[in-house]
């Protein structure tokens, strides 16, 4: 507080500067003003002044006290006291420095605590999300080891077609979906059983859904105000069962993979008798390439037409020959198939053998069509399995 104390005179002078009044006159005004107030108060009347406040008398009850000198008990009689209640406008004006402050509710059962509670489940869920990620990456690396394929990255792997990664990728997505619902009554629904039926589903990496789902977890959780403890228990339960499912599935998937080769191998098992031509399916070449390729995939492959032949010299390989004739190494499998009689084992091709290079329809060795390469690889798989 400043030490400035204004007197009536000061007020008067301030007033006179603002109004066309002489100092003397304004002094009179100010004096009169306060005298009127005093008079009213002394008449036990209250005075209400617009934009300033209310002056009134308040009654103080008599009370017992002690005489400061003697120590005797004394009664302080009741009396009147001037009470001033400022007007709202004056209050606000005076409190301007502290106007921005608001009362804050504190305590355990209040909003502050509720906010903290909200943050707690959020934190635990973030930790849990990290756990999921680490587990998933561990599982992916496990799959890579089992496949003996080139090491998959710990991140969600690139869309290499092989049944297992495709299936396991579906699982994380499904598990995420389960977790999101947070009401897993049957965590035992091994999501493994469903994707089994579709080994060659789109390998579109479920990475983006995975990420978005993880991100969605956070906002969705904020709205869910469950107790953190119940949440934790549910989540652990899901996690345990899910990881059990994972372990289980790897063995399951191997069992399931077995039937597939059986299905596809049949057409291949039939001896490639040079009967008619392959021309039947091939006739429909350009107009409907899709159908032709599917036919090619399903039928027994026979090779009757040849575009050339090669002598297997030292150091020569089917892959290189395939590259030379077809433009890609993967199609060596067809060369091998065409010359099965001559080549018992594609790993050991007798030097000096003459092998025929079959004529393959364009849609089979179409380098722009991913299915050609994929199918060639599956053919290789079957050849390996035999």
């Amino acid at each position, binding site marked *: 507080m400043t030490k400035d104390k204004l007197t009536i005179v000061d007020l008067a002078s301030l007033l006179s500067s603002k109004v066309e009044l002489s100092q003397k006159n304004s002094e009179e005004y100010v004096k009169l003003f306060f005298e009127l107030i005093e008079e009213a108060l002394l008449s036990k009347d209250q005075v209400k002044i617009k934009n300033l406040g209310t002056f009134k008398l308040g009654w103080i009850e008599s009370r017992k006290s002690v005489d400061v000198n003697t120590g005797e008990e004394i009664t302080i009689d009741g009396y009147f006291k001037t*009470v001033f209640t400022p007007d709202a406008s004056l209050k606000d004006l005076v409190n*301007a420095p502290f106007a921005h402050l608001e009362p804050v509710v504190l305590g355990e059962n209040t909003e502050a605590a509720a906010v903290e509670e909200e943050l707690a489940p959020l934190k635990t869920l973030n930790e849990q999300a990290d756990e999921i990620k680490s587990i998933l990456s561990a599982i992916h690396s496990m799959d890579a080891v089992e496949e003996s394929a080139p090491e998959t990255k710990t991140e969600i792997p690139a869309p290499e077609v092989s049944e297992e990664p495709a299936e396991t990728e579906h699982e994380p997505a499904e598990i995420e979906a389960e977790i999101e619902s947070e009401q897993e009554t049957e965590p035992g629904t091994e999501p493994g059983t469903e994707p089994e039926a579709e080994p060659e589903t789109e390998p579109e990496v479920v990475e983006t859904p995975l990420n978005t789902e993880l991100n969605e977890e956070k906002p969705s959780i904020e709205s869910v105000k469950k107790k953190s403890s119940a949440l934790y228990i549910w989540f652990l339960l899901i996690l345990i069962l899910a990881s059990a499912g994972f372990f289980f599935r790897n063995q399951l998937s191997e069992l399931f993979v077995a039937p597939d080769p059986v299905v596809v191998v049949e057409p291949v098992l039939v001896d490639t008798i040079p009967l008619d031509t392959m021309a039947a399916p091939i006739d429909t070449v350009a107009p409907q390439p899709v159908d032709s390729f599917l036919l090619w995939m399903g039928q027994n492959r026979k090779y009757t037409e040849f575009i050339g032949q090669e002598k297997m010299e030292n150091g020569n390989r089917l892959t290189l020959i395939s590259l030379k004739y077809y433009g890609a190494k993967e199609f060596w499998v067809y060369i091998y198939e065409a010359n099965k009689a001559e080549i018992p084992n594609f790993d050991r091709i007798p030097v000096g053998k003459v092998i025929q290079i079959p004529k393959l329809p364009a849609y089979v060795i179409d380098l722009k069509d991913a299915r050609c390469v994929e199918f060639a690889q599956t053919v290789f798989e079957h050849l390996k399995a035999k």
Partner: protein
Amino acid sequence: MTYKELVDTFSSKMNVSSANADEMIQLLVKEIQSQLSDGKTIGIQGFGALELKKKEERLSVHPATQVRTLIPPKLVVNFKQSSLFKTKLKDLKAND
């Protein structure tokens, strides 16, 4: 006394119109307001002083709900009567 009565008394005593009186009073009030908001105290001899007081922030508990609230600090206008006026009032009490 109401504000109107005050204005009337003022106008009669000062020989000015009511409107004029009202204007005057309001101007005075405005001046008091601005001085107070600047932090100055206004002392009226024989009556009392209008001063600013800072109220510290405090923790209040709602008696029924037990909700604890932190009330922020604030500045308020306080009127402290002078001892002269106090004695004048004490003479009054006889009636009550």
